[in-house]
């Protein structure tokens, strides 16, 4: 049962983040885009935290976050965006979707792991 779902269309980033979180003793599942992320989240109630890219094919990360709240009615899971995007407008849209935080790529594992653990717990 996973605690954290990592959603990124880049396998390079997906594996890097997942491997790092696993090395910290966390259970991790992965998804390749927003649509896949929604499906994985629906199928695994143990997921407490989603770390997602924004720009992805099929469904972007912000749309996924909005659907997690609006369609799946899931308000228990925390969502963090890990993305190259840094525009206030996008962050505002993320806040409105109830996401908890924003990380600008590249991923710096040690710097954020404490917060992720806190959010995941």
């Amino acid at each position, binding site marked *: 049962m996973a605690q954290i779902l990592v959603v990124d269309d*880049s*396998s*390079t980033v997906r594996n890097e983040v997942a491997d790092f979180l696993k090395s910290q003793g966390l259970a991790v599942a992965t998804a390749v885009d927003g649509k896949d992320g929604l499906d994985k989240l629906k199928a695994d109630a143990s997921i407490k935290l989603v770390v997602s890219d924004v720009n992805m094919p099929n469904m972007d990360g912000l749309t996924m976050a909005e659907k997690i709240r609006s369609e799946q009615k899931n308000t228990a899971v925390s969502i963090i965006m890990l993305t190259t995007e*840094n525009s206030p407008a996008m*962050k505002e849209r993320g806040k409105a979707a109830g996401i908890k935080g*924003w990380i600008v790529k590249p991923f710096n594992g040690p710097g954020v792991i404490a917060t992720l653990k806190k959010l995941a717990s």
Partner: protein
Amino acid sequence: MKNDRLVVSKVLVLDDVAAHFEHLKAFCEECGLVGIRPQQRDAASVMAILRSNVDLGGIMLYERFGGTAGQGLALAREIHAARPELPIFLRRDAVASMAGLDEKTAAMFRCAYTLADLQQLRSSLEVSIFSRVYPNELVRGISDFTRASLETLFPLCDIDTETPYLVKDRLIYGEVFTLIAIDSDWCRGYMMFQASEEAVLELLRRAGGPEGEHWTFRELNNVLGELTNLAWGSFKNRYVGHDNRGERGQTQVPIIINHQRGFISFGSDDPQLCLKYLLRERHRPEAAAVPIFQRFVFNLNWSPDEFRENPSVESLVDAGELELF
């Protein structure tokens, strides 16, 4: 002509009069040109250079290159047929004009000049190669954030950056390239990365340890894709205004790719900004550096007068830090 510009251009110098080398060399330096000279003067050697250098801005050709009258012009015909996008500047002995050349031959050249009168060449270079001014702050910023992205993805390599330059070439380096659109109030076009599949894949395999031994071009695709994503994101965060509402006309032109010839056209003859990064493995100093080329093609809009760095960029959180809401 330039001097304060960060950006130079590479030109193939086909001029074999030794007494003139210093003169031409000084002129090239003054104009921001990096001259490349062939070791051999025969046409086959010159064409081989053209095939191996995909990042030229133009060609400076002496009409008697090769030794006899007519040999230089014959070579010009061959070059022009193979690479019509490259401007050729013709040095003549007597007159700085196309006098004595038939119309078809004269049309191959951007200008004619003599060593005694380089003004025509100077003016023609401005129009042909340096027709686009890329702000130094932009070029420096691109170089910095791309280098940082490469360091993230290739942690076992040192990254060197060559002096940025302008290219008229439309040839694609290597077997793999990425392409992503850039859309802002002041520039619209594309960014590309180009690389040799095997050379970069070997770097990744060695960095990947036992698992990396089985990596294929798909892993390379992922890494180059992420490199493109990181550089694109940095460009947007720095240079695309946050009030950019995408209300500009969404004009597009076809992009034409000829796989057999390794050729790509964006429908514009304007010089492209090219940056070449050299990846050197720290633990294998004897190994050849692996190049990755980055090109910017602002074919849909280029208004450098409106270029600005995002005023809020200083207040943005550093990459990798978590901003909690």
